[in-house]
Each structure stands twice: as structure tokens, then as C-alpha cells.
């Protein structure tokens, strides 16, 4: 009967190997999806940061200050420099 035991063990081993491979595949798929999600969120975040940068650029700020509030750049001799 040892031959049957060996065969049974071999079958069990084969099943284990297959099960591990399936798990590896499943994990790989999940990692792929998660990695993709992370990358999208990072890209979105990066876009938002760049949008902030665009909205706070000197050109945009000057234009907004001029059009919305009627501000004009101050003359340098009107600037009072405080000593440190």
C-alpha cells in the first residue's frame, strides 16, 4: 500500500503547487490593479498640483489682481524696507 500513499502524496503536492500558482496569479492581478489605481491617483494628484501652480503663476495672479481688484504694481520707491 505504500505506493498508493506515495501517489496520494504526489497528487496532494501537485494540487498544492497548482493552488499556489493560482494564488500567485490572483495576487499578481490584484497587485496590477492596485498599482494602476495608485498610479492614476498619483497622476491626478500631480495634475492638481500643477493646476495650483498654473493658477498661482505670476501671469494669472497679475491678471486677476488687475481685472478683479484693480491693483497695480507698486513703485519701488514706495516700498519701505524694514531692517532685519
Amino acid at each position, binding site marked *: 500500500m505504500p*505506493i498508493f500513499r506515495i501517489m496520494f502524496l504526489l497528487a496532494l503536492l501537485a494540487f498544492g503547487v497548482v493552488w499556489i500558482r493560482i494564488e500567485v*496569479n490572483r495576487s*499578481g*492581478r490584484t*497587485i*496590477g490593479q492596485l*498599482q*494602476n489605481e495608485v*498610479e*492614476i491617483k*498619483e*497622476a*491626478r494628484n*500631480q*495634475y492638481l498640483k*500643477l*493646476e495650483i*501652480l*498654473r493658477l498661482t*503663476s*505670476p*501671469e494669472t495672479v*497679475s491678471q486677476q489682481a488687475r481685472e478683479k481688484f484693480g491693483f497695480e*504694481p*507698486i*513703485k*519701488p*520707491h514706495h*516700498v519701505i*524696507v524694514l531692517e532685519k
Partner: protein
Amino acid sequence: MFKKTVSPPVVFNIKTRMRRAGFIILLAPLVIFVRLFYMQTFLHEEFSSKAERAIYNYLAEDRLRGKILDVNGLTLAESVRTHSCGINKRYVKDKDKTVSFLADTLDMPKSQILEKWNKTGNFFFVAKKIKPDKYIKISEILRTPLGQGLELTPEYERIHPYNQSALDIIGAANSKNLGLSGVEQMFNRELSQDISKKRAKHARRGEIIYDRKLKEELSVGSVYLTIDSLIQYYAENALRKAVETVGAEHGVALVQEPKSGRILAAASYPVSDGQSLAFQFTYEPGSTFKTIAVASALDAGTARITDSIDMEGRKWEVAKGFVIQDKQHDKAFLSIPEIMQLSSNIGAGKIALELGPKNLFYYLKAFGFGSKTDINFNGESKGSVSLYTNWTKVDTVTKGYRYAEAVTHQQLIGADSAIANGGNMMQPHLNDRLEYADGKVEKRAKPVKIRRVLRPETTETMKKVLQSVVEAGSGKRAHITGYNVAGKTGTAEKLSKEGGYGKRSHVVSFCGFVPTTDPQFTILVILDNPAKYSFGGTAAAPVFKEIAEPLLSYKAVKPDQLDFE
């Protein structure tokens, strides 16, 4: 007597039968096992590579690219991950629904997608560089029947948050993230990353199952420029307005710190990415060059500030057939400050002649004309200075007020900065520092004195002379309340295609520094070929003022005049 031995009958008992049956059953797996062992051991390489090719896919990710930032760490160029959306027609279940969905999501006309569908083979790209929000919408339906056949491929896009600002210096990188021009090309090695490869398994409908990374991602460095994005904006804004007002073909505005040689702004208009007029192009500077000739003569001692120059009745025949005329004044004699204020060609020509070709040549070389500045900008021009032994009398004279050869804008501002800082030629810098992936910072823009070209006494005299140009001469429109401004205007005729100098084709410029008592900024403004005939004093000097005023406020530079208003 004889006993017959009888062998026992062969009995096939159950045990023997099972053993034999078991042996026969195991024989086949044993053969397979031996074969597999042979294949695994002796044919391993061949089969593993076959299996690798069949099962796995190597995904070469686009190169990551480092950032380009201004001196304060504000991003001027950055790579952002985007995606391309493609259609694998074979797998699409419902063409009409899928195309309608893509048209709505990507804001594209349906007809445009259908046109591509009909014209191409099995696979085609619907849109490239789609933004994350659109990508999310598409990726959400990817595993539904509607999304079957759609493929999303990652790629990177180079973003310039300040739009066109400094784009001529930053340059361009291609879709593979390789630097093609400008700073992108200059620092391509530091900004680039090796392509990272990931091993992944093929799955249905282009789905990717990650396996393991082949190459660790190498992070990339960042390049910090000496450019200040706010000063760059001041320069670009003032330049754009001036170019549009006078209808010039091009315009250049450069701002440099005279003490350190750092370039704070380098604006060209119109902007062409990676083509910087400031570094790559040459021009004849015209009267702004009188500053160099007069400073050289004062330094060499061939002219003194108290000298009075005979104007030869305002019509000087230098050589047979070559006459210089001063039409802008009616004086018989001019002092050196007056020569500069009135921009007298006769005066500057005579000073250059008195200095002599050999001395003038050596001063020009010492000021850096005819040599590259080592700023390392790709395609930087070195201008030209011919050997003095080939100069005629006319050549020497014209070099005093016009300079018959070519200089770059950077060379001229560098020479004026030397006058501003007390006589030292400083190495110009465009790159402030490099920040490597491991956090190590390499400072590049340390002040480097190349050589002394003028004595401090000469520069003090020149500052007063140039200040008088703004106070009482052609540069009045560069005057800034509260500050002493020094500078020189220039209006130069351009060489025409027919030969000689064209009367209607000219370059107007102003080069100066502020405040004169302790110069913080040297500014050069050039307007090339204005449609409306204009002068350096009327067109370029106001641009200098428009750049300098907010700059002085921004850097909180104290006025150097005591009584003003």
C-alpha cells in the same frame, strides 16, 4: 526409488498481479518523469526561454523624467503620467455603444472615431495623452461588455505649468521623454532614467497580471535654474508688449546679477522652445557698444574723463569715401559724458582710434567677445572678433561705435555687468543646482571670477558717465524715481541683403544697471527690426524701466537717491 519432483503450479495471486499492474501503471509516469528530468536538466535554457516568450510579456515603461525648476523651486517642467486609448476591433462587442461612450468621454466627435475605425486595421489609437479623469471613466468600464476591446497604454507627458514662460530656455523633450533642445537637452543625462521593465503575464483583452520587476526603478534628478519665474514673467510681459507696440520681428530681454553672474531672466519673444535668442543668436550691438570702447580707452589711459574731443565740424572723413556724421548735435567739441549722452559716433570712433587696434582687440577679448561664455547652453554662439592685424583705420573707428562684427546678447550683458561690479568678468550661470535622486545637492552657480578687465577707478567713472546718459542723454526714459540708473541706448542699422546697411532695417536696444551706487541687476533689452521706426531711447529704454521697477520692489532694493519725488 526415484521421486519425481513436481514444481508447484504457477499461482497468480492477487498481490503479484497488483504489483505488476502497479508497475505497468507507474511505467508511463516514470518515462515522463525521466523525460522531464532530462528536459529540466539538459534542455533547461531552451525550454525556459520558450516558456518565457509564450507566457510572459515584458512591459517597457516609459522613461521617467526629472523636473526643471526655477531658483525658488517652482516647477517649470514636469512629466505627468497619461494614457493612450486604443481599440482592438476584434474584441468589441457592440461597436455603436463603445464608440458613443468614447466620443462622450473623450469629448471627440463620433464621426472622427468611426473614420479611424473604417480606415485602420484591427487596432488603432482613439486618443493619446488622455488625462487621469477621462482615464478613470474608461478604466471603470474596461471589464464590462461595453469596454471589451478597449486598451489603455501608459505614457508620459511633459507639462509646463507656466505655459510659454521660459520655454525657449527649457526646451523640449520628445514623447519618449528624451531631451531635444534647451535645458532638456543640456541636462538630459541627469533628468533621464533607464527604462524600467516589468514582467507581466498576458491575460484576456490586454489585461496585465504583474509578475515581478526586472529592473529596479531608478529615481531621477531635478535641475534648478538660476531663473526666477517672477522676474522671468516681468521680462516676458514687458518684452511682449514692446514687441507688439513697435511691431518688431523679435525681442530679447536678459536680466543678470552683476556680482554673481547669475541669469535671473532670459526672455525671447516670440517664444520658440529650445531656441534662445539670448544665447544662440548674434547681432551688431550698435551704440550700446560705445560703453565698451570708452571704458577700454579710459582704462588704458588713452582717454581721460576731462578730455574734450574735436567733432571735426560734425562731419569726419575717416578715410577716402568713408565719412561719419553727427546730426544729433551742433557742438564743435564734446566731453566724454556728452559723447555718451548724445551718442556721438565721431566721438566714440575717435576714442577707439586713439586706443588703437591692438589695445582695443585685447580689451574686446578680455570682455569675452568672440568666445563662448561656458554657460553650456546648446548651440551657444561665440560671436566673432577678427584679428586686429587685419583691421583698417575704418574698422578700428567703427568698432568704437557700432562694432562691425557679431556679439551675443549674453556677451554684451556680461561686459556691462563687469562695469557694474567693479571690473570683474564673472562666469554667467543658468543652472543653479542639481538635486540627485539620493537627495545629494550639487551647487553649480557659485560666483566665479574669470578675470579682471577694468580697474575699479575706471568702472566708477563709467558708472557716472552711463548715469548721465539716463539723467541727461538718450536714455531718459529708463529713469526710475528714487534710483540712479546707468545705461546706454543703441540704434543700429542692420546689414541688408543687397550689401551695406539698410536704412529701414534696424535693431534698437538698451543695456544698463540699477542702482548705480550698488548695482543689483544688469538688464539688456533688444527689439529687432521694429516696423515703426524707433530708437533705443524711445522703444527699448522704457522696457528696461518696466522690467526694473517691479524687480526692485520684489527684491526690496532700497532707493539710492536721497531726494526724490
